[in-house]
């Protein structure tokens, strides 16, 4: 609680300053514009969340004519992002290189497999967020989250599948909510699958008893005819569309929320005028019809933060994640 309070306090003090620099940035942004095509890196293989973000934003920027220069989507897979980060970290000050980012930029370094974390790069903007969703089989006995955690308390071996490795997003999310519900975070028998889809098929086949994954990914699977059913979402308020009927954790008396945010970062020490240019570019992109259509289809929710806000947010996330990871005994 204390850390959150101070963070907010600092933001309050900095806000007027941020306004000033923002103004200055806007003036300078007139002066700076990219002079060649921008390398927009997805630190993963085609098909995943980062890749979709990079390709969707590049396409919208191009089709809406928001930038004079081309945004070239580039995949640099490896080490859950670590390979791309190592490359980008060595390209200090380059204003023509951006990359898509999300919680792994904090989690992977905490797990000790990347030398570089969010502090090495320049935050540009947070764009969107998704939330976690807890699923069980349609004919399961559990009607809400409290039933599930009650059962877990009695039978700790109960398996909960997720779409990512131990210590990564899905694991932190379920461990966090379990801990908020009064269980031991490390008491969850978390089974790592190589993707949310694989975790959900294992739930449909009855191989695991519950699954935690991204709400956007699960949305297409839910419905009256479906084999699976949702017990709760990690958002602060109810989600829209097909997910509107699913209660939040907080509605069920568990005070916990979890964001699967995605945003854009740039090379270390990117010039301020370039940061201002991109900040503004992405803010304008979020307003376009093209973007809003694609965003809704992909089940994303706008969650824009400017460079400054995003940087503070990342620091706060790191605090929170290291807390849960320490509880899980996964901090090395």
């Amino acid at each position: 609680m204390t850390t959150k309070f101070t963070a907010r306090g600092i933001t309050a003090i900095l806000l007027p300053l941020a306004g000033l620099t923002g103004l200055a940035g806007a003036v300078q942004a007139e002066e700076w514009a990219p002079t060649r095509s921008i390398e927009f890196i997805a630190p993963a293989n085609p098909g995943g969340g980062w890749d979709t973000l990079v390709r969707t934003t590049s396409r919208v920027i191009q089709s809406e004519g928001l930038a004079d220069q081309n945004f070239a989507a580039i995949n640099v897979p490896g080490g859950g992002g670590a390979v791309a980060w190592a490359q980008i970290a060595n390209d200090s000050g380059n204003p023509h290189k951006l990359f898509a980012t999300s919680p792994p930029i904090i989690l992977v370094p905490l797990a000790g497999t990347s030398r570089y974390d969010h502090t090495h790069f320049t935050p540009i903007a947070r764009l969107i967020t998704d939330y976690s969703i807890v699923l069980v089989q349609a004919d399961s006995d559990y009607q809400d989250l409290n039933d599930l955690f009650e059962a877990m308390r009695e039978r700790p071996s109960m398996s909960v599948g997720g779409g990512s490795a131990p210590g990564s997003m899905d694991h932190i999310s379920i461990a966090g909510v379990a801990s908020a519900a009064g269980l031991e975070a490390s008491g969850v028998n978390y089974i790592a699958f190589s993707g949310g889809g694989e975790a959900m098929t294992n739930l449909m086949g009855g191989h695991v008893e519950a699954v935690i994954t991204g709400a956007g990914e699960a949305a297409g699977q839910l419905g009256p005819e479906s084999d699976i059913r949702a017990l709760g979402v990690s958002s602060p308020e109810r989600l829209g569309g097909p997910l509107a009927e699913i209660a939040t954790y907080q509605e069920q008396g568990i005070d916990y929320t979890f964001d699967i945010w995605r945003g854009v970062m740039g090379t270390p020490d990117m010039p301020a005028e370039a940061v201002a240019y991109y900040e503004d570019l992405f803010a304008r992109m979020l307003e376009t019809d093209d973007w809003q259509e694609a965003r809704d289809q992909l089940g994303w929710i706008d969650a824009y933060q400017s460079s400054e806000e995003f940087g503070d947010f990342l620091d706060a996330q790191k605090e929170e994640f290291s807390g849960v990871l320490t509880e899980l005994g996964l901090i090395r």
Partner: protein
Amino acid sequence: MEALNNLMYGFGIALQPMNIAYVFGGVFAGTIIGMLPGLGPISALALMIPITFAMEPSSGLILMAGVYYGAIFGGSSSSILLNAPGVAGTVATSFDGYPMAKQGMAGKALAIAAYASFVGGTISIVFLMMVAPMLSRVAVAFGPAEYFALMVLGLTAVVSLSDKSLVKGLIAAVVGIMISIIGIDLQTGTVRFAFGTTHLLDGIDFLVVALGVFALAEVFYMLLRGGGGKEPERNAIGSLRLSRREVKEIAGPIGRSSVLGFFTGVLPGAGATIGSFLGYSMEKRIAKDGDTFGKGNIKGVAAPEAANNAACTGSFVPLLTLGVPGSGTTAVLLGALLVMGISPGPAMLVDRPDVFWGVIASMYIGNIMLLVLNLPLIPYIAKILEMPRPLLLSLILIFCMIGVYGMSFSVIDLLFLLGFGLMGLGMRLFGFPAAPLILALILGSIMEESMRRALQISGGDWMVFVDKPISMWLLIIAALSLLLPLVKKVMQRARS
């Protein structure tokens, strides 16, 4: 009857002039992509997402599906001609396809690959159409324990893939498993055998190893034997025609491998590569002339080619009926469909029958196009073999390097390619077979992950592997396939 009506409806969509053009464009692009080692369907499809965005969803999927199965269709060419697999699913094709090419039967090998691909593709579309909704049950019935058992069964093929010495085959398989566990362990997040570099965190890509131990090792081997080796004969392509006896010979393997390949494809995570290996090793065991597999047996080309195309079609079952991608390629397809506003899943058959039946009908058309497109091209593609040897060797080298670099844009992977090339040469000189290494590399990581997942769910109880009926039967079949040849041998000895 209902399926037939639906299919007619699907043809109504697939036969629209624009959609015919998309099928043709898709399979044509796919064939080319498949022929080039390294450049696989995944990256090609990712590049196409922006193009398909503005298209009608059924047309978009028709185009992208065409690229996918077109690539698997075309991938056999470089396996057969250069010993360099074009896509992961055609590694097994090179086991007999390349020896055939060396014996002056390249034309025949390519023709068999094309016919087998066509039949495998077509049989599996019929399956996809008739039983897809039911099959989604099969796909979810496979949990960690069942996958483990399936991988064990797959690994028993090491015995049939090690030609002369079983011990050397087993050693190669163990090395393959060791390579497969390099990188971050999914169950614990522990980094294994990465020697502190970020480049090994995701392990070594299977195609780097395959191109190294097959294609590059072949180049080294030819160099080592010296330029004094005889020039390739003129007209080394040979005839494309199959005799009636040959057609009869490959009909069985193609039929069986098509069915096996399709069901392997239905299982999420198994896919074309495993399907082709299972098809190959099954036929090798069944065949009376099994000992000539690996030396240019036509059945050894027919079986994996039928299986990999059937598996490719099979992988559409979990995608279209469950909305769950079973492989990297179908994951990209799923992403593209979501962007077009389609969420595949149980409801899609009802909500968007045009997409489901349109793409199925287009697959029939696409397979015919592939056959018509590929057969006349064979003599031209096979001309590659008539090149002077120094040119040919440099060409293989360039293909391998572009392929590997194109996958990861990493120079370090090129060094790995070189390393595996040298390893492959060493294995060849000392009589270690390369196929078990590749098989173990493919199956090893899935086997290990599934085993540990199953044990974590069961709380460490090993009985989980025999408590589940599917897993138990797969393990029994695996045990039998190892024991029966032994029993046979003992019986023979006892009799004599």
